[in-house]
């Protein structure tokens, strides 16, 4: 754990730190900016990943009636709206006293959530990362996209698309619509799964399991073919945090909070999600809007952690579905008894979770409770509630307080990308140290940094994507602020050195 991700003191800058800015990072949700601080010997001293978080969204929620919120928060993210929908619903279950919700509501929500996780993971692996992984990080830029994958590996692309489609159909069957669903409400859900939809999904689920197994094999083979790269690329040791079921099983919908240290030793276990503030604190740094969460018991310097598939698979004691558990054991064997901290191992872990999700979906589709039974529960009203869920990218926390007039008076959201903030900074620093020579910004360096960031699948800012908005701007600036080099990648992929335009650098 390094305590060095601090704002560079002007005095330190004057002693020889240089700054490299990459803005924005492509193929991640929204825009990010990377600043690499160099010393006078061109060694990477620090990395700062600047993320445009959903500034203002919490204020946007405050003052709204609580029952609107599970629908509104879906607009936080165009990729995982269902995770926000369910985390908010779980928080407001507490407010309306629905603890627990009915068995039917619990199972329909789980079905919705596991559909969401599988479709998000499938998008990430087959669409966002497969081009890098299948063609190599330095391959021709116009091949490194899903279209290139579809042309070179049509079978892989087809499976990815149809896995996504299946996940979307699960969401439609449970949430009412593919997008902007309203299925989950404070206290339960508002509809059962229809017999027709269940039959449609049951028809395809065995095929999906087979394809998910193929996807795990692809990820496994990528590691086996180039273990030196996959084990070392962006590798950083960190604590790990996730929900687990009370018996230690992997559970993506509900559970208690568990954290392990980098050696795999349990730091805390069995903590109620309602008391997350007793475990986690968020540090503010002046150079970014995004906070840095850490485990209070270890402090800011040692307590940062990673979340998401890599953490979840190693934090739990077992996966409660046979095919995925068998794959998890093979995955753990790769670490030879030590926790796996390789950044690219996120992809392997992600595909094992896809397999698990479909196994769970299959089991839930056979459960009669999704077709009938009480949908809503009510109980003594409370003024506040916390909803925690394992979203595709990791632990997602929604915390609300509600007044007697039913209006939300406080909203606090901690998303997976925030939990992973320092881990991503560390991973990029590791990559930059390996691939930046300090004299020239190369397209290869940018590609490698983007690969490291993409492994975490960060959701940087959600769903603004208007046409023509995605340039990539990299500047190399000397200790006195002088521009040494600058490269611009236009939206059509043209990579140009451009020393003639003004550069806006982070402060």
């Amino acid at each position, binding site marked *: 754990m390094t305590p060095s991700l601090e704002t560079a003191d002007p005095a330190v800058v004057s002693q020889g730190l240089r700054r490299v800015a990459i803005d924005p990072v*492509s*193929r*991640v*949700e*929204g825009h990010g900016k990377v600043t690499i601080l160099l010393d006078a010997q061109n060694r990477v001293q620090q990395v700062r990943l600047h993320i445009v978080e*959903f500034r*203002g*969204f919490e*204020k*946007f929620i405050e003052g709204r009636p609580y029952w609107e919120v599970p629908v*509104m928060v879906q*607009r936080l993210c*165009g*990729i995982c*709206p269902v995770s926000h929908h369910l985390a908010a619903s779980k928080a407001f279950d507490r407010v309306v006293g629905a603890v627990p919700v009915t068995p039917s509501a619990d199972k329909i929500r789980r079905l919705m959530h596991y559909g969401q996780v599988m479709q998000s993971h499938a*998008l990430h692996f*087959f*669409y*966002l990362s497969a081009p890098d992984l299948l063609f190599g990080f330095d391959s021709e*830029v*116009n091949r490194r*996209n*899903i*279209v*290139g994958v*579809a*042309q070179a590996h*049509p079978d892989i*692309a*087809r499976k*990815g*698309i*149809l896995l*996504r*489609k*299946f996940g*979307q*159909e699960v969401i439609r069957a449970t949430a009412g619509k*593919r*997008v*902007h669903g309203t299925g989950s409400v404070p206290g339960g859900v508002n509809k059962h799964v229809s017999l027709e939809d269940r039959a*449609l999904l049951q*028809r*395809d689920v065995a095929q*999906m399991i087979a394809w998910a197994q193929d996807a795990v094999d692809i990820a496994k083979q990528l590691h086996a073919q180039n273990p030196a790269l996959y084990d070392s690329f962006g590798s950083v040791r960190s604590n790990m945090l996730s929900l687990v079921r009370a018996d230690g099983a992997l559970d993506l919908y509900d559970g208690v909070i568990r954290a392990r240290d980098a050696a795999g030793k349990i730091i805390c276990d069995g903590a109620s999600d309602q008391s997350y503030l007793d475990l986690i604190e968020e540090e503010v740094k002046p150079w970014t809007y995004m906070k840095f969460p850490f485990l209070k018991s270890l402090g800011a310097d040692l307590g940062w952690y990673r979340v998401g598939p890599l953490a979840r698979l190693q934090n739990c004691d077992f996966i409660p579905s046979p095919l995925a558990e068998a794959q998890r054991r093979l995955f753990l064997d790769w670490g030879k008894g030590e926790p796996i901290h390789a950044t690219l191992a996120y992809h392997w872990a992600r595909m094992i979770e896809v397999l698990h999700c479909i196994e769970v979906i299959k089991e839930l589709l056979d459960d009669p409770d999704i077709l009938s039974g009480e949908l809503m529960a009510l109980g003594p009203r409370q003024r506040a509630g916390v909803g925690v869920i394992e979203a595709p990218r990791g632990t997602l926390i929604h915390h609300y307080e509600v007044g007697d007039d039913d209006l939300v008076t406080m909203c606090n959201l901690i998303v997976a990308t925030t939990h992973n903030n320092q881990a991503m900074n560390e991973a990029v620093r590791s990559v930059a140290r390996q691939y930046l020579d300090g004299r020239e910004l190369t397209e290869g360096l940018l590609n490698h940094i983007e690969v490291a960031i993409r492994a975490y699948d960060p959701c940087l800012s*959600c*769903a*603004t*994507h*208007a*046409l*023509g*908005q*995605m*340039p*990539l701007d990299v500047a190399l600036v000397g200790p006195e602020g002088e521009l040494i080099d600058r490269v611009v*990648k236009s*939206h*059509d*992929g043209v990579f140009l050195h451009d020393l003639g335009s003004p550069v806006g650098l982070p402060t």
Partner: protein
Amino acid sequence: MTAQPASVAPLLVFGWGNLSRGDDALGPLCIEHLRDLRMPAARVEYLDDYQLQIEHALDLVGRQRVLFVDASLSCRAPFEVTPLRAVQDASFTTHAMSPQALMQVFRDLRGEEPPPCTLLAIRGECFELGEPPSVGALDHLAAALQWAEAWLATPVPQVAHA
């Protein structure tokens, strides 16, 4: 699985954007207005989403004509209409993809040409979270809707797209 629908409307209008991000809402708002025209479901299907995604290539299957609708920062006001062709998209992408790349995915996935697709890009200015669409953008939307209604009224050829 669901790659081959049993029957689909010959026309598809697909708008995308985030209703909570100012003028990014133009795509879904356009869909909302067009739905209010209550044209027969057997003739046209309306879809909206936050972004174009790979699986949307399957929504093109069986169509005779497709209209994509999105907000744009770079088009001329009030709107621009562009016939699209499938291309291997060399642009940097976020999680969202371009309609041209979506058409290319369709082509690679199915080994046939996608249906004729047109992009209706509506000029937007402000995409801030929590902001309503700007007055200017709503004016652009009104003009674009007139064009979209004419597109919908164009007779559909009797021969189904292969």
